[in-house]
């Protein structure tokens, strides 16, 4: 960030109204096609003084930030979604169009525009200049990737281009920071009201006609003595390896295994360490407080609730570090290309692959990672099926029940025991549910329509530490704020349910608490699955997070913590039949028992609609699956398999 001229620190509120001077701040929009380096420039201009939210009513993310232009003057920058034109077909395009026309509620019409174009591909990118210049807003045309242009022997005459377009032009490299001071000067100029809009020398084309726009762009380029650079040699060389018929898939596999291993096992020690740290901090903090209601609420409710969220952070950071490197380097597009054929069988596309893979660790970062999928329907479909992947929070539950109910005996000789086979089949079950759901969704409500798969292959680049770092900070803050607040509320509510009503100044036994009453209350609902009210309490508490059921059952059976695993297994044995146990496993494979996931889905889909659909669907599937499993197993143990079929 050292190259950022005139950008001292200082975080200020991004709300346009509470500017210290009481004056509405200057608003500048950053517009550009995808892959033009828009976000890199935005990060350079604003650094950490940015805020991420969704545009009202849509799933499109709104990045706003502040850049300080003079000692006491700041401008507000809005990073608009990458678009090729201002036709309002996709949600991204509609948002960009609406903001630029001043029709987006809550976002003031920009006072100026920074149009950023990739100058190694100026002919195509200049097409966007036509609709932007026709807005007649003060516009700075930024030619990004100047370093690339020079290295590959291309050139452009900046003053000539500025004359043709009737707008100032800056040749910069957002990557190296070269020329960014010119952008700051421009922002200063507009903030001081010194910029006048001139008409372009070259008359603008009819905006709806793309071939005409392209011809216009070509002519503008010619007049500005634009010479396109030579093809990117290194990108071609790397592609001949990464997309090699044999080595390509091999490298892809290595990358996939590395990502999976890192978030699945690599994050484990850090998460365990963090968990211990949170617990001991809680214990230490608890020792300072007098025993009683407040202490219990703070430690068992608030602290452990927040802790259960924070513990996911290492996984999220590692996953986003990986995705950041893959995306910024350009490999993610190649991985999507390789995965596309397989994903298409499920009605999805190549870009869904990495998010779904990460969902085996945790659905929360996986759903946040679906941002790389531009197609909104494919993105929602991926979000909807991600929680079916067997996440690491299901593992302790599976392990406990399998160990309690399934006797270890060889299934495939020495290679596969019955317990491992059971675990494996639960992974398969989740995967199948995901695939079926994807197929159903993609052939009905989320049909992609006519939008075909199109994927731009950007040239390979070195990822920068700044960009990776900003992304990590950005994603972790979003996660902590959004998931954290929801989890906090849920944790407090659940704590209340388990601790109310008080008896003679003492918290009730869990079966006498409100949670216990609810457990009893829902017993008729879950009895067809072979569950009693104790399991019911466990299911309710596991709404916060799946693995919580173990602690709750431990409490119900009067065992401290989860260390008494063997004792808990025996207790479960007396509580559940084999059918009930299998039903519980199936229930956990399908049910959406994770508030963090729901909170993230709500954020990423921009409303309550999808999380509610998802929750209802998964719960219904879990109940149905559990019901089937319970009755099949019961019938099987009562008589022959045929009988079982008849009885159903």
């Amino acid at each position, binding site marked *: 960030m050292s190259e950022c001229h005139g950008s001292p620190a200082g975080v200020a509120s991004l709300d346009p109204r509470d500017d210290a001077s009481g004056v509405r701040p200057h608003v500048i929009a950053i517009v550009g096609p995808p892959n033009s380096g828009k976000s890199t420039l935005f990060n350079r201009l604003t650094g950490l003084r940015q805020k991420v939210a969704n545009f009202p009513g849509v799933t499109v993310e709104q990045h706003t930030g502040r850049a300080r232009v003079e000692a006491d003057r700041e401008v507000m920058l809005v990073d608009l979604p990458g678009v*090729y*034109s201002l*036709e309002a*077909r996709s949600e991204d395009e509609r948002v960009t169009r609406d903001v630029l026309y001043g029709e987006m509620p809550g976002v003031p019409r920009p006072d100026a525009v920074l149009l950023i174009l990739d100058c*190694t*591909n*100026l*002919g*195509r990118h200049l*097409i966007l200049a036509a609709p932007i210049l026709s807005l007649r807003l003060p516009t700075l045309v930024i030619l990004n990737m100047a370093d690339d242009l020079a290295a590959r022997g291309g050139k452009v005459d900046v003053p000539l281009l500025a004359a043709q377009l009737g707008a100032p032009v800056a040749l910069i490299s957002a990557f190296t920071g070269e020329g960014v001071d010119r952008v700051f000067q421009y922002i200063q100029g507009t903030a001081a009201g010194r910029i006048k809009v001139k008409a372009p020398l070259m008359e603008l084309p009819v905006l709806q006609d*793309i*071939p005409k726009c*392209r*011809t216009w*762009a*070509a*002519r503008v*380029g*010619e007049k500005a003595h*634009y010479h*396109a650079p030579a093809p990117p040699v290194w990108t071609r060389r790397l*592609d*001949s390896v990464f*997309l090699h*018929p044999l080595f*390509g*898939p091999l490298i892809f596999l290595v990358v996939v295994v590395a990502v999976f291993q890192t978030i699945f096992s690599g994050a484990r020690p850090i998460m365990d360490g963090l968990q211990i740290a949170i617990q001991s901090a809680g214990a230490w903090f608890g020792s300072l407080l007098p025993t009683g209601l407040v202490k219990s609420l703070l430690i068992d409710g608030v602290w452990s609730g927040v802790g259960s969220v924070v513990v996911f952070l290492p996984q999220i950071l590692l996953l986003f570090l990986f995705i950041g490197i893959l995306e910024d380097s350009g490999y993610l*597009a190649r991985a999507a*290309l*390789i995965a*596309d*054929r397989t994903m*298409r069988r499920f009605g999805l596309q*190549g870009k869904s692959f990495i998010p779904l893979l990460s969902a085996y660790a945790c659905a929360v970062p996986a759903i946040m990672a679906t941002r790389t999928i531009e197609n909104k329907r494919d993105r929602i479909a991926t979000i909807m099926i991600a929680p079916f992947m067997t996440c690491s929070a299901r593992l302790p539950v599976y392990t406990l029940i399998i160990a309690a109910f399934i006797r270890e005996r060889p299934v495939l000789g020495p290679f596969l025991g019955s317990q491992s086979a059971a675990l494996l089949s639960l992974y398969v079950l989740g995967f199948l549910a995901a695939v079926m759901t994807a197929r159903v969704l993609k052939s009905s409500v989320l049909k992609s329509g*006519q*939008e*075909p*798969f*199109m*994927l*731009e*292959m950007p040239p390979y680049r070195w990822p920068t530490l700044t960009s990776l770092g900003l992304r990590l900070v950005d994603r972790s803050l979003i996660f902590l704020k959004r998931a954290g607040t929801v989890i906090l509320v849920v944790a407090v509510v659940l704590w209340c349910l388990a601790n109310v009503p008080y008896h003679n100044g003492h918290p009730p036994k869990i079966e006498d608490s409100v949670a216990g009453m609810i457990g009893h209350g829902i017993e008729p609902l879950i009895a067809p699955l072979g569950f009693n009210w104790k399991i019911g309490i466990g299911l309710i508490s596991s709404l916060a997070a799946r693995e919580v059921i173990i602690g709750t059952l431990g409490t119900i059976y009067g065992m401290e913590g989860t260390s008494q695993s063997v004792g808990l297994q025996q207790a479960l044995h007396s509580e559940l039949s084999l059918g009930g146990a299998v039903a519980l496993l199936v229930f956990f494979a399908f049910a959406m028992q994770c508030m963090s996931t729901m909170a993230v889905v709500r954020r990423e889909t921009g409303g309550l609609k999808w999380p509610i659909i998802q929750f209802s669907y998964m719960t219904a599937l879990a109940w149905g699956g559990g019901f089937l499993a319970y009755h099949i197993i019961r019938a099987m143990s009562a008589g022959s398999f045929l009988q079982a079929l008849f009885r159903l």
Partner: protein
Amino acid sequence: MQLSFRKPVARLSRSLEDLHPGEEGVLDRLDLPKDVARRLMELGFLPGHRISRAMAAPGGDPRVFRVDGSEIALRRETAARLRLRDQSAPAAADTAGVSLSA
């Protein structure tokens, strides 16, 4: 003009799908709904532009095409809808203008 008995029926024009790796063709038209065609045109698939076939995913689908200075991957089903100009026909005037970066 040449008479050929080997192709008695008017041969269907070739499409992007028929391009071999490294081969180049000139786009004639996009047999796709208007919105989709527009989207592809924004990416550089404009009638009159030269397009060449680059790498592909294993199994040959999707395929990467070099067009207007960038590389875009399309599935075969989409590539088959982008028809090429018949190379033996006299070069038609480039209606869409000369590409800057071709």
